[in-house]
């Protein structure tokens, strides 16, 4: 009987020790993403996850000797999902803005891309002529920087339709329900196949990445504010990957221009 008690106590202590070690141990890092967001994150035809951020994330996890687990989550619930502990970080092209920084802790920025206006092929639009835009229907993805930009600068001029996913925006642009859309430029160019001769879409403005209070200082990984040590590990890993050429190698696979920060 005494042996039993001892054994029990020993098992319990071991169990508790393992438990407390696990809480600080990041051998498995769960990262929230909103799919698809080509070329940053999307599924190949066989279902395999890929994209610039997926590869970069995997490289960070390798550096930290951890496993990345990718958790899918719709964009408009992605910060609440982080705070509800559904995952440990958001690595989903989230731009660093003041509003978001009040809720989450950001890593150092790891890339930056501009946004631009797009329309159906053959349509004549002059974005710089504000009066000509009056009454047009503009589609954006809900709660993105692009949504904020259009709402703030064109909100009283155009009719804004907000969608849950970027795919729905393109569907309705194709269906001629929308006159214009304002999207992240690399994502739009890759989804719209702009290089192809028979593409149905066209870019109708220059690249836009100002003003800073809307577009922020680039894209960062978001963590819960109390997970300061995890954010620091990510910063360290990202800095090392930018230094040793891993970052550049991944970037060159997806872009023919520089997005490094």
């Amino acid at each position, binding site marked *: 009987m005494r042996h039993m008690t001892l054994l029990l106590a020993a098992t319990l202590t071991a169990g508790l020790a393992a438990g407390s070690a696990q809480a600080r141990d990041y051998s498995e890092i769960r990262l929230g993403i909103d799919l698809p967001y080509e070329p940053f994150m999307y599924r190949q035809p066989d279902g395999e996850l890929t994209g610039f951020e997926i590869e970069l994330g995997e490289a960070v996890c390798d550096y930290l000797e951890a496993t990345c687990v990718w958790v899918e989550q719709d964009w408009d619930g992605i910060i609440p999902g982080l705070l509800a502990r559904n995952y440990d970080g958001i690595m989903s092209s989230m731009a660093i803005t003041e509003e978001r920084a009040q809720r989450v802790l950001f890593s150092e920025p790891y890339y930056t891309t501009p946004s631009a206006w797009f329309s159906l092929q053959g349509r004549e639009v002059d974005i710089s002529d504000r009066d000509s835009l009056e009454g047009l229907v503009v589609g954006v993805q*809900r*709660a993105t920087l692009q949504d904020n930009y259009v709402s703030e600068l064109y909100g009283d001029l155009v009719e804004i339709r907000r969608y849950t996913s970027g795919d729905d925006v393109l569907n309705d642009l194709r269906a001629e329900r929308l006159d214009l859309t304002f999207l992240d430029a690399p994502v739009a160019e890759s989804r719209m196949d702009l290089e192809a001769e028979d593409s149905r879409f066209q870019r109708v403005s220059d690249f836009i990445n100002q003003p800073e209070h809307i577009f922020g200082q680039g894209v960062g990984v978001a963590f819960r504010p109390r997970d300061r040590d995890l954010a620091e590990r990510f910063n360290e890993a990202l800095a090392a990957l930018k230094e040793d050429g891993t970052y550049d190698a991944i970037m060159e696979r997806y872009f023919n221009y520089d997005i490094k920060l």
Partner: protein
Amino acid sequence: MEILAWFHELLDGNLIFTPQTLGYYWDGLVVTVQLVFVSLLIGLVLAVPLAIGRSSGRRWISLPIYAYTYVFRGTPLLIQLYIIYYGVVFFDGIQETFLWPLLREAFYPALIAFTLNTAAYTTEIFRGAIKATPKGEIEAARAYGMSQALMMRRIILPSAFRRALPAYGNEVIFMLHASAIASVVTLMDLTGAARFVYARFYAPFEAFIFVAVIYLCLTFTILFFFRYLEKRLLAHLRPQS
């Protein structure tokens, strides 16, 4: 003036419920009420002849109506909405037809889906009420020499409407709640406004509890209206004291 000052004081320092976001909720309330009210009204008008046809003894009349109610009651409203909103654009040349000015907006596809859905349910509610007409009343009407149409108008429909009232009141409330899915096709109804506020401020509790309270108020208004109607129209069924 005093109310305005009180209102501003109430909102002072509140980051989420500013006059602007309350404006979104108000616009959302208007859209929800319009959508639900208009679809219920058209649905009701459609359902009366459909219910009469559905209780007809002639199978070539009743069977197609049965097929319609079966399909619309057998599939989720969300799927019907997706098919009508995103599905129609896959018909080539739909943009050139006279329907496009309507289908282009988000409101009308939602209105069509909701109307067809509620008409199907209301048809079945009325059919049940028509079938439950006491045999004696029909025999009495025949004995008076009433034609089929006159009997339908004077005897069957008035009593069937009364019998259908409690079930129809539930259908109205279900429709109000079902309208919450309209925001998936970009319509800024009450739920759409709540989703916007939620996404803008990352504040799920505030955004959704506020909208839930508005839905509750709407539901109670409908409930009281139907209770009043039942009291008036079903007075003959209450026990005499």
